[in-house]
Each structure stands twice: as structure tokens, then as C-alpha cells.
């Protein structure tokens, strides 16, 4: 069962994502800060990471570049309430950029696509 790591500081969103992804048949682990999330990448070896950008302390863009430096093959989806970070060069390292929405449909679709393309590569 593929494992997804959610790095998200809003508790309610963490719960929502956890429910939806578990319903889709994934194992889900969550972190509330970038530091906690980076530690979990090592301990949990997730197959994909969903990363919020505005986080307390280290932000999601810096966390992503640190994560990718050690694990360049792990797909990362940036997930922000703001689309403005799409202009940031740092964000271009992500496999996908999904703007937050009450409907998790797009995010779940991108997760399935990325895991499928990874399985095929």
C-alpha cells in the first residue's frame, strides 16, 4: 500500500486529507511542521509527499529543496491556499502545484497520476 506523507500545519486539513487518502486506499502519515516532516521522510520512507508552503518556522519551499537534495526521486506536490508561489523558481522543483480547495478531487487525482507514472518508470 503506497504511503503518503502530509506536511500541513492546519489540523482540520490534516484530518480531511488523512480521511480522503485512506479512503482511496493509501497509508497516511502526517506532520505539522517542516522539521517534523523532514524527519518523517527518513523514518517513514513515504512514496509521495504533499507539502503546504506557509508553515511555522521553515517554509515548504525550503523544506522541499532539502528533501529533494537527499531524496530526488520522491514525488512532491506543493499544496497552498495561494497560487502566487507558482512564480517562485523554488516551486518549480515540485512535481505538481495544487491550490487548496474544499474539494480534494484535484489533489487526489494528481497523487494517483504521480504514483502511477512512478510505478511505470
Amino acid at each position: 500500500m503506497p504511503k503518503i506523507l502530509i506536511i500541513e500545519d492546519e489540523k482540520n486539513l490534516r484530518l480531511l486529507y488523512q480521511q480522503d487518502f485512506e479512503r482511496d486506499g493509501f497509508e497516511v502519515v502526517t506532520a505539522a511542521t517542516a522539521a517534523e516532516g523532514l524527519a518523517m521522510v527518513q523514518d517513514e520512507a513515504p512514496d509521495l509527499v504533499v507539502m503546504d508552503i506557509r508553515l511555522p518556522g521553515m517554509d515548504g519551499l525550503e523544506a522541499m529543496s532539502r528533501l529533494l537534495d537527499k531524496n530526488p526521486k520522491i514525488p512532491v506536490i506543493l499544496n497552498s491556499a495561494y497560487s502566487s508561489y507558482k512564480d517562485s523558481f523554488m516551486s518549480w522543483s515540485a512535481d505538481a502545484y495544487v491550490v487548496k480547495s474544499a474539494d480534494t478531487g484535484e489533489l487526489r487525482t494528481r497523487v494517483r497520476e504521480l504514483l502511477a507514472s512512478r510505478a511505470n518508470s
Partner: protein
Amino acid sequence: MVDRRRTLLGDTLAIVMAGGQGERLYPLTRDRGKPAVPFGGIYRVIDFTLSNCLNSGLRKIYVLTQYKSGSLERHVRIGWGPLFNHELDEWIQCVPPQLRVGERWYEGTADAVYQNVYLLEQERPRYVVVLSGDHIYKMDFARLIARHEANGAIATAAAVEVPLAAASAFGVIAVDEEWRITAFQEKPKAPSPVPGRPGTALVNMGVYVFDTETLVRALTADARRDTRHDFGHDILPALVDTKKLYAYPFIDENKKETAYWRDIGTLDSYYDASMDLVAVEPVFNLYDKNWPIRTMAQQLPPAKTVFAQEEPGGRLGIVLDSLVSGGAIVSGGRVERCILGPEVRVNSYAKVVDSVLMDGVDIGRHAHVTKAIIDKDVRIPASFVVGEDPEEDKRRFTVTPAGVVVIPRGAQLD
């Protein structure tokens, strides 16, 4: 503040790769990186690329350093910094590794720029010119950038045309009739000839122009792949399929019959390029007022020769077919086909032939030096002989495949 962005050059950022360790130039690179190696008496290797930038009108320059960068940083700061005016949005700045991306050194030229993407983010130039800090040539980058724009290219690689047989030692660029790049070939046994010119091939000079967005997208994608993270090997080949990648023919501002471009990669190529300067009709001209080569200026007294005792056994200070830097004194010795750095001293009855003496070298009385490179401040004792007995030289010094003796800085020969 003046808005320099209104012009093509004002909206271009230059990145000079100066992190090369230069293992094959050891021992000249024992205490300094390759771009900081002294060359041509008063210059350092990087001065030629920086002079090209300045003469082309590129005035936003980052120099990416890595190994033993202290002397290079000082040279750029003191020698080049004052030529750029911050108030006019101009600068030249050395950037050592910041470890922003991860705790590791640069792993290839592309990785060096990738780790500094934040510099591009801050400036957001329209174009980025990527250059090597260890080549000797004269090139107008303004013409290169103008052609890049006229072609509607996303990236352009400058290329020097060389005879087909000589191209096998280099990275070769294959192009179609419109100079659109069709392939990159690394040290190919059978290089692709230039269309319409079957006897020649295009060698990749490591001089590139990129649209900034193209560059950043290519670097971020490459960073996630298992590659050598090298511009010529990975970044540009990955863009060939866009069909918007062009080659640009090297137009030599040196204005000689044969285009002059040298990669100072080995001790022998360093020696050969140095000797290119002392020929009567030098293939590389340092004296063209339309393309001045700058360096860090030093206040030094004029070079001098003394003793004119032309009778047999007399003391005769004489210099033939040589470059002589400020402060050098040839005092009763003989110098032929040499490059004498600043404050070199050649004493009575000494004979120095076909050699490069860097700053402060002192040649003792009756010493003989032939076909040697002597690094800074070495004192050659009286009656010492270099370059006449290969076995003895090999026992004490580095001797290159072509037989050049290299004496490192700080060598104690007494």
C-alpha cells in the same frame, strides 16, 4: 537609479564558473583554483573572461567559486570591483557555496548554478550568460546575445570551428543548415561536420546564453535526475528536442587568421598558451586597444635591464622575445622567449630560456633554466640547473609529458 533593464545587456546576468579545482594543473593549483592561476605575467586566467564581459558591456556578474577561492576572491574584489558601479545597478561579486540546497559541494557546473538559483530569483534577468573562468579567448557577448534573440532561441551555445580531426578531443556540436543544434557529441570518434564545410566541426566552448525561465526549468528538472549535472553533457542535450537551441559561430575579436580559444586544462596547454604570447607575431594579441585585457593593477617601478658589458665574459643584461612585467630586473643575465612576472630578478651570468617565471622569482648567478614554469617567489640558487637533465628534474619536480619542468611556490632549493 538608472534602469539598465531597458537594454538587452542591462537585462542579462553573467555567471562565471570559477570553481574548477584544476587537478591537471597541479602544482600551480596547489594553493589556488584554476581561474586564479597567474598567466601572461600580470594577469590571472579569469581576467580574460572578465575582460570579455566588460568589453561586451555585461555589467552584472556573479563569479561562482569553490576550491581555495581566497586569492581569486581578493583579485576580483580589488582588481575588478571598482570598475562596476552599484549605483548604476552594476556589480561583480564572488559567490562561494552557500549550502542553501543541501550540505554538499557543487556536483557539476549545472549543480553550481542550481544551488544559486536564488540569485536568479532576486534579479530575474531576461537572459543568463554562463561562462567558464578558465578559457583564454576574446569574444563579444553582445553579438552572441543579439543573435540569440534574433533566432528566437531558448538557449544558444557558442562554438569554435576546428579541423575535423582535432575535434575528437572535445565536446562537439552538430547543427543543421540554420545552425540549429541537432546533437551534442562528447569526444566523438567521428564528429559531425559543419553543413557545407565537410572538413570542419564545431567545438563547444562552454559559453551559453539562456532565457532565464528555460534555464531554471532545465536546472530544477536535472537536479532530480541521476546525471553528471553538467551543462554540456546534460542540460543542453535535454533541450535539443525543443528545436529552439542554436549554435553561434565564435567571432574572434583577436582579429587573427585563426580563431584563438584555449582551455587552460593541463600544464602543457598552460605552457603552450603562455608561449603563444611571446611569438614575434603572437597568435593572441594583448596589445589591441580596442579589446583591452584588464587585471588587478599594481603600483610597480618600470622593468629594467642593467649591465651592458658586451665584451666576452662581461656582465650583460639582455632580454629577447619576451614579456617583461613591471618591477622586473634583469641584472647581467640572459632571457630568451620568457614571460617574466612582476618583480622577477635574473642575476648575472644566469640564462633563462623558454620559461614562465611568476611574480618575485629570483634566478641566482650562473643558474640555467630551460623550458620551465616557476611559481611565485621561488629562489633559484646560484649555478642551479633546471631543464637540462630530465632524470634529475623528475626526481625533484613535476615534469609534464611534453617535458616542461614545474617548480611550485615555496620550493626550497638551497
